[in-house]
């Protein structure tokens, strides 16, 4: 009978280094669960997944606290994986403690990837391999290219419980709350697994996807009374960390009758977006009161908002500079200019890993970005890393610091379209290669 650890083409495997076996096996350095492949051979050769994953395994004492694990194989060779402790609502890609992503998809089968990594085993002892190199030769990862795969589970010791096994192709990595998480409104029917709305009652109240006139659906929000009844909130959230960010497109509805609507105001009048990041998914909460990293508005003035109601409603925060308003409100600057997708604005909000946020905007589809800045001095707004900030009225208030962020949007009355939403982080970016803006190389709010 084969030793089962010799058969793993893509999956997880426990290892312990000969000199690193700790008192608490997977909780200590030098041992734990690693992402393995290619039959791995000796059980001690898998790159160790970060401490947070090992801790989650320790805590997995029932189905309620189980770790959900997802392993994806490359179409030709290699593998990667991710894990979740909230039943697949949020996922973290497998990585080493230093953030190195474990992903060998895209390598040719048989490619040798050596373990020359500063903390390959997670024990802080630097790159070193087993003394008996004939038994445990360096290099330590050989990319697997086995084409036909079984699903298999095995035990070493202890008592393991496996449940809810699913094998699929083309998995919806953007569904649920996996990152990157996307929404482009491909159907007139709202995806109720992802979103919850309130107040939709056209033609005077609208909170649903619609064809703005170019055949490309977008989400239109607007209403006929300033009662804050119309809201859109995501049902899922994402933890701050790894530069969590949200990108989306926004444009206006200049003539509400064009789509059969009857809102009080035409864009940009009374038109904001009150998002993207909120501290709650509770549809009952006022949309302006829960913004943790985003912007609200007061009449036609868009302002930076965080900490929700804690920092005050609308009139007390820093407002955006003229450049942003000129971009956001083209119709307001030139009544003859059509408002629509072509004159829309793309925005990207970066949540601080612990608190605060930074935003930037683009008028060329995200090729170039302008940092969000405050009126009247055009100081870049960036509160990431700050736990407190001083408002324009000299009140010192907490920055946004909700640990789990949800999406939420609403205008007030004027018609506003939202489209092409994407939430990502460093491990799961919306666009590969997008760099993180430098923090605090400018004026801040202390």
């Amino acid at each position: 009978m084969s030793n089962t650890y010799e058969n793993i083409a893509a999956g997880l495997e426990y290892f312990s280094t000969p000199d690193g076996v700790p008192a608490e096996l997977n909780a200590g350095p030098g041992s734990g669960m690693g992402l393995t492949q290619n039959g791995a051979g000796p059980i001690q050769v898998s790159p160790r997944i970060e401490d947070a994953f090992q801790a989650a395994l320790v805590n997995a004492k029932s189905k309620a606290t189980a770790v959900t694990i997802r392993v994806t194989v490359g179409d030709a060779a290699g593998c990667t994986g991710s894990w979740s402790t909230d039943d697949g609502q949020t996922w973290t890609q497998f990585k080493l403690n230093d953030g190195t992503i474990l992903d060998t998809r895209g390598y040719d089968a048989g490619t040798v990837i050596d373990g020359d990594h500063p903390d390959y085993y997670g024990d802080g002892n630097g790159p070193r391999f087993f003394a008996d190199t004939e038994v445990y030769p360096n290099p330590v990862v050989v990319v697997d290219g086995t084409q036909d795969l079984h699903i298999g589970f095995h035990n070493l010791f202890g008592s393991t419980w496996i449940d809810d096994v699913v094998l699929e192709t083309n998995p919806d990595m953007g569904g649920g709350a996996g990152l990157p998480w996307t929404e482009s409104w491909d159907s007139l029917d709202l995806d109720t697994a992802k979103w919850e709305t309130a107040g939709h009652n056209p033609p005077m109240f609208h909170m649903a996807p619609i064809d703005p006139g170019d055949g490309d659906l977008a989400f239109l929000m607007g209403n006929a009374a300033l009662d804050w009844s119309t809201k859109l909130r995501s049902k899922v959230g994402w933890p701050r960390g790894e530069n969590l960010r949200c990108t989306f497109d926004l444009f206006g509805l200049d003539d509400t009758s064009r789509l059969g609507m009857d809102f009080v105001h035409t864009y940009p009048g009374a038109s904001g977006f009150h998002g993207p990041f909120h501290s709650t998914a509770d549809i009952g909460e006022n949309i302006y009161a829960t913004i943790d990293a985003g912007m609200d508005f007061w009449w036609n003035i868009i302002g930076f908002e965080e900490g929700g109601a804690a920092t005050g409603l609308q009139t007390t925060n820093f407002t955006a500079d003229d450049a942003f308003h000129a971009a956001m409100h083209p119709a307001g600057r030139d009544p003859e200019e059509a408002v629509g997708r072509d004159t829309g604005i793309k925005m990207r909000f970066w949540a601080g890993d612990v608190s605060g946020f930074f935003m930037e905007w683009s008028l060329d589809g995200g090729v170039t970005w302008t940092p969000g800045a405050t009126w009247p001095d055009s100081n870049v707004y960036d509160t990431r890393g700050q736990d407190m900030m001083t408002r324009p009225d000299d009140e010192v208030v907490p920055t946004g610091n909700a640990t789990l962020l949800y999406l939420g949007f609403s205008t007030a009355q004027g018609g506003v379209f939202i489209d092409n939403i994407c939430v990502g982080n460093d491990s799961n970016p919306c666009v590969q290669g997008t760099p993180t803006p430098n923090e605090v190389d400018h004026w801040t709010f202390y």
Partner: protein
Amino acid sequence: MRFIGYLTVPAILALGLIVAQPISAEVLFEDNFDATGQAGAGSEDPIPPDLAVWDSFQTNLVVHPDNAAGDYSLNMFNLNLSKGAYTIQTYPRGSDLTCTFKACTTSSILTIAAAIRSPMASMAPSGFGDG
């Protein structure tokens, strides 16, 4: 502007095509080990997994003591490098083939991580089902 040069026009167009043409997921296999219809189900006694699907050696479906009654899971216990179960059928790579599962333990902190070896294997051990 800081980000000029990071994205080429072809890359942007390619990304747009990907976004514009979502591909539906297809489930190839799933098992929640609910033991429906299997002999012994509901007795709370260990029963084997579906042997038409799984090649099993000393694995059983058992209700985890902290789970709901009747919610079976595939259980493996004690030190034995060969205990486990494989699907008899194989599945080809391609289209982001992905296996998702839940894992937990009743063991102490000392043993949980040692217990899982998963999920995609390159071969079924010979004679596995024979014990």
